[in-house]
């Protein structure tokens, strides 16, 4: 039950929004996964990522994030589950030594060896900001601290999100007890000293409260008071959900400390982060967002059918960028790479197919396609051109594209019968061969071929 019971296989970037030195980096490790179960771990890690990027405010900040999955094998599957806590008594030989019952008599206290986990995270992703371990067990459990740990039980991903609030953003607990409501007598009144954390306060004064700019004039301050400080406040919220105010009972005490909303993920799992927490997260993550894109030249846009738009432009960094309107919203910008001059051209011959073109800084024309749900590679079509290309399709399987050569002539080339034909100089008097080329029968020698062909 140590690092001798497995090995670190490798690291995969499963959410990639740029260099690790410039993004906020989450590391997800697995414990209790045998080598044959790494595929399952990949799915489990992806499930957390899917939840994370759909969770406000991360849904609007996902471009700031990278997520790294560290594949770690263990000799055995699962985690220790001591009988003393009502468990099965299983002793699992795992790399991070995952064990339920890490606190006496509390089975759900699932923890790992944090020192090992931090060492692996540091070695695999030196720029990591937060580390978590998913334990391969369907028994509910987890713990927080330097490493967030949680199992595969339904709802356990909430543990990871709550712990991100602590570890990554410095939030305090917003619940009004330590051990539990009615289970203690020494958490009635918060001790003096304003908490440094941004989401709890002793100050419910409208004029000086730390989140006063978010409190509406009509909202009472404090918004709730606990009438009996020997127990948790049982009253329901007197204001609509999402109202920012000062609700008594926070920072592990029944009275004397206030939280900004009636509910928050830092107060109870399965709630959104409150407005104050979301603002802090945005502030902390905004430096990790990529700079706004800037473009040169003109965009190209195309549609392959109802409800679908794709548009392209050349960035000031010379790369081509694409973005789509699909499922009633705009997707992310996709950096298609390259180093281009002028403006792009785009065309679709039918659903699921896009072809786009641009002139490289080396003067050659390049083409790339979206087909079978992914982008293909850039194809160098050669030539030596200036300005911007034009492209068109008259139907499935047929593309024609045009550009002006550095000799001032217009050139055309076609995709037909599943291959590219030759360049045709259209500035010469029309020949029967060129007519054949325009109708798809391409090949043979073309007069005044573009001066440089990089193919």
């Amino acid at each position, binding site marked *: 039950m140590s690092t001798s019971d497995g090995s670190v296989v490798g690291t995969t970037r499963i959410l990639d929004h740029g*260099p690790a*030195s*410039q993004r*906020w*980096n989450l590391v997800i490790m697995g414990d209790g996964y045998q080598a044959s179960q790494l595929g399952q771990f990949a799915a489990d890690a992806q499930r957390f990522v899917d939840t994370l990027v759909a969770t406000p405010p991360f849904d609007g900040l996902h471009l700031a994030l990278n997520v790294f999955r560290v594949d770690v094998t263990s000799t055995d599957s699962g985690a220790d589950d001591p009988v003393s806590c009502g468990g099965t008594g299983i002793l699992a030989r795992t790399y991070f030594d995952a064990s339920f019952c890490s*606190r006496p008599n*509390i089975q*759900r*206290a699932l*923890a790992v060896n944090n*020192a090992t986990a*931090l060492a692996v995270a*540091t070695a695999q992703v*030196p*720029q990591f*900001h937060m580390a978590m371990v998913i334990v391969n067990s369907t028994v509910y*459990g*987890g*713990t*927080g*601290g*330097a490493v967030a740990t*949680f199992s595969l039980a*339904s*709802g356990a991903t909430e543990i990871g999100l*709550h712990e991100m609030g*602590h*570890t990554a953003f*410095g939030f*305090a*607990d917003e619940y009004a007890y*330590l*051990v*539990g*409501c009615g289970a203690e007598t*020494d*958490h*009635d009144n918060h*001790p*003096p*000293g*304003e*908490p*440094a*954390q941004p989401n709890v306060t002793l100050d419910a004064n409208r004029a000086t409260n730390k989140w006063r700019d978010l409190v509406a004039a009509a909202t009472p301050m404090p918004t709730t008071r606990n009438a009996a400080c020997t127990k948790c406040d049982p009253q329901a919220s007197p204001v609509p959900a999402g109202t920012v105010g000062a609700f008594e009972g926070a920072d*592990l005490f029944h009275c004397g400390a206030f939280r900004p909303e009636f509910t928050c993920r830092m107060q*109870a*799992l*399965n709630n959104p982060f409150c407005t104050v927490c979301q603002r802090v997260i945005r502030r*902390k*993550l905004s430096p990790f967002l990529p*700079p706004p894109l800037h473009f040169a030249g003109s965009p190209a846009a195309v549609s392959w059918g109802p409800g679908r738009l794709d548009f392209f432009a050349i960035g000031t*960094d010379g*790369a081509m960028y694409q973005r789509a309107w699909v499922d009633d919203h705009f997707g992310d910008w996709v950096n298609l790479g*390259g*180093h281009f001059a002028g403006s792009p051209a785009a065309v679709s011959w039918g659903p699921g197919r896009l072809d786009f073109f641009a002139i*490289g800084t080396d003067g050659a024309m*390049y083409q790339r396609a979206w087909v079978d749900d992914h982008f293909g*590679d*850039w194809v160098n079509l050669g030539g030596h051109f200036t300005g911007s290309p034009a492209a068109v399709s008259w139907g499935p399987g047929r593309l024609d594209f045009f550009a002006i050569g550095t000799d001032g002539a217009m050139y055309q080339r076609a995709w037909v019968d599943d291959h590219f034909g030759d360049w045709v100089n259209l500035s010469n008097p029309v020949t029967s061969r060129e007519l054949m080329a325009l109708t798809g029968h391409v090949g043979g020698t073309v007069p005044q071929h573009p001066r440089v062909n990089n193919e």
Partner: protein
Amino acid sequence: MSAPDRPDSTPSQRSQAAVRLTFAYDGDDVRLLSRHRVEMTIPPGDALEGHEAQAGFWAEVRGVDGRVLHRRVIHDPIQRSVELFSDDPEQTLSRVPVERPEGVFTLVVPDVEDADHVALISSGPQLPGARAAAREIARFPLRPSPPGSQGRTP
């Protein structure tokens, strides 16, 4: 065939020299285990002033003259209680006290010009009754120093 070469990324505008410090603690006794320099972006710090009477835990990067250059409020990394989670909707969160806190944690701080050391500031365990303002519990040089000089409690 491929498009003309282009760097994978534009030069960093925000990443900076930083130091990842890994600590071990036994109660409020904090030891520095390792120090790694790394080029990365660090979340913005917290207010450098106006927190003198506050409670909690934060790290300060200071110059040789003691001037605070960077301050970051963090959730108390010394686990005086362990957070527990439950799928019982009536009480999804709770904590259980830890009699003798011991463990490890990491901290990344900017290695800014003029930075000399990192100080850890803590108001200690959150106990009922009066609570003292936070105080420095340890400081560590940001750069390697002669053996035996690392980490000292003021």
